[in-house]
């Protein structure tokens, strides 16, 4: 995995203007996406994950306004910049001029939307919708070459090329989603934002699409920002995960750290909210209460009314992301429990104890062994 950064989101905030004052949908969010990485953005409805993605692609329309921040895109160092330098300067996507933005979108960054049913035009064939991208961005390309490229893209996502003449309603849900991915890949972008790409699909089809995305990433080397509410799915496919709550990132970690050692009480609650199929039956605790109303956010940490570990500082101060221990370098958490200067109460075993981590690792290794045995024995 390359560690070179391709996109850096810095202190981005998005407000929705409303009659009763501005609603902070995204509040001071920062993260960076490495080249070839799959970055997962998880959160419940209303946590701001889709708004953030739309802000990155500059797809937000009033009443949504980006009030602060930068989205820096680092062009590939190999490609020489305008003034012949080897490492071109980063570009702030939020400040691109309209014509620059048109060139940036789709060629550098494309989006796969949630509902393939609505994202495709029902009265145009799949082929016409793929070549539309090519006509818009590569007008010099001969029509025949465009047709060939469209057929190639369909084959790439596992649809036979004779489907070019099909209309969206003639395809199944899974094939429509594949077609959308084909359109997103048309110009070989470096970054693809996937907003709940498999939510409306059945598990078996979802698994096929995910395998397809993983295989394509291996081959083409694009980066993915993968947005979903399904944490179990993210844990399985992503490299780095950020958990959003009420417009803020509350924890960011690699998927292994997050699964074995969640730090934020909200992450811990989420991990114990969905039933697991494999391994012993764990008791599930869930999270009391319901997600906050963004119009009237609780003071301090927005999660504190639902948090069983809250203490004095939680109601007063908004926590910022910090690294909880010296060992976990990629893990950051926005929680006062890890800020020694605030004298937090003693951490319960699940959140702070490293011994549990070791036990979990062993358990995991055991599970993995038995899991592998299961699958090979199917032959």
């Amino acid at each position, binding site marked *: 995995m390359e560690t070179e950064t391709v996109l850096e989101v810095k202190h981005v905030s998005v407000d929705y203007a409303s009659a009763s004052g501005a609603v902070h949908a995204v509040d001071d969010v920062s993260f960076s996406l490495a080249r070839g990485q799959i970055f997962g953005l998880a959160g419940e409805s209303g946590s701001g994950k889709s708004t953030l993605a739309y802000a990155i692609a500059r797809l937000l329309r009033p009443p949504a306004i980006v009030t602060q921040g930068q989205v820096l895109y680092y062009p590939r160092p190999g490609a020489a910049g305008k003034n012949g330098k080897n490492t071109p300067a980063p570009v702030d996507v939020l400040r691109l001029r309209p014509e620059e933005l048109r060139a940036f979108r789709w060629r550098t960054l494309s989006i796969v939307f949630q509902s393939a049913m609505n994202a495709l035009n029902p009265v145009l064939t799949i082929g016409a919708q793929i070549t539309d991208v090519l006509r818009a961005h590569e007008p010099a390309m001969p029509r025949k070459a465009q047709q060939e490229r469209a057929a190639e893209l369909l084959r790439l996502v596992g649809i036979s090329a004779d489907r070019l003449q099909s209309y969206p309603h003639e395809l199944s849900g899974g094939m429509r989603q594949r077609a959308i991915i084909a359109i997103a890949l048309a110009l070989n972008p470096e970054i693809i934002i996937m907003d709940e790409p498999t939510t409306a699909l059945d598990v078996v089809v979802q698994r096929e699409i995910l395998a397809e995305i993983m295989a394509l990433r291996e081959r083409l080397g694009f980066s993915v920002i993968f947005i979903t509410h399904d944490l179990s799915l993210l844990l399985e496919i992503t490299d780095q995960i950020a958990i959003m709550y009420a417009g803020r990132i509350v924890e960011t970690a690699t998927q292994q750290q997050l699964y074995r050692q969640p730090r934020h009480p909200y992450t811990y609650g989420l991990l114990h909210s969905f039933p697991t199929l494999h391994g012993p039956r764990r008791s599930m605790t869930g*999270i009391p209460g319901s997600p906050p109303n963004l119009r009237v956010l609780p003071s301090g940490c927005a999660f504190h009314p639902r948090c069983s570990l809250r203490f004095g500082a939680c109601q007063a101060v908004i926590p910022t992301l910090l690294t909880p221990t010296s060992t976990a370098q990629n893990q950051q958490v926005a929680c006062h429990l890890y800020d020694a200067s605030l004298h937090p109460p003693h951490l319960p075993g699940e959140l702070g104890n490293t011994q549990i981590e070791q036990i979990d690792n062993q358990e995991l290794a055991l599970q993995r062994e038995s899991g592998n045995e299961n699958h090979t024995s199917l032959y």
Partner: protein
Amino acid sequence: MKIIHRFTESSASNVGQGGMPEHSTQKADLEAPILEAVHLRKVFPLRGLRLFGPPRGVQAVEDVSLALRPGCSTALVGESGSGKTTVARLLAQLYPRTAGELLFRGQPLTGKSSRALRQYRRYVQLIFQDPFASLNPMHTIYYHLSRPLRIYGHAHSAAEEERQVTALLERVNLTPARQFLRQFPHQLSGGQRQRVAIARALAARPAVLLADEPVSMLDVSIRLEVLNLLLRLKAEDRLALLYITHDIASARYFADETLVMYAGQMVEGGPSEAVTQAPRHPYTQLLLLAAPNPARLGMAEQRPDSPLLETRGEPPSLVNPPGGCRFHPRCPFAMPVCRTQVPPRTELGNGHWTRCYLYGESSKPTCSNVARSAQSKES
């Protein structure tokens, strides 16, 4: 035969660990079912003139039998279009059945008069998937809950009615109840609305509760609470609960018994832990392999290799479904007999059964012919 057994036995060692209460169906003595479906069949006729041949129809449910017992929860698992909602609506007598019988407390249901249906719905209530659509936006919560009390004659005075409505709200943890009485559905969150829908079903004082995907529209962090609420109510009132879901992992936690449907046919059933940890039917195995598994970190390197995962394709059209076992076009283990005859029910012990020729006494497949049919499918 042996190979598939190994898949199941190695993971069956997990059964019953983790300190969760043992399921009631694992006891030898079972209570008499309160609602029973026997060889239920539903064909939705298709409109349109056809001069030749028999009239066509969507064969949504084919030969489904199930029994709901007091104090037991039964999960009905399947993908979209598998007919699971149709089964619930047949059980609630919202649809007339094409063939088959419904037995309520051992008596066959024949009456079709509105009086007989109302009497039936006093005992059998349905909870719908979408709490945004199942409550009338024009009416208050009080109206929603008082109507069943009046219709079924549980409340005889206004004071009694209000007392019972308040008690219902408290039972579903909507407290302080007074605050909710005069509110309209739009003023509540999704989780609260679904609680109102549950309270409305309870108002009739039913013996059977049919819950059609009761949490799939809710946020992850509040799903568990609604499910636990249903479990508590089931235990308190000794309700027979049918839990319809596409999420087989939640069936493991939530239901004593799990039934798996594919394309209108029931393919496997039995104690939840046995079905999810030792699946026998290839479709159940596919469903379980496809479910997200956070323990399987990093899909690329640890993707399970199974011929089942190579099965491309989607559930068949139910207008003209494949003969025999409807899964055979996708099944890597399909044998000639699967194409022509519907597999009989094979008992696997402890109430676990499947409808698959791989386990039938008559065909007795061996390791070699399973492998051969898998090969011939691939080539």
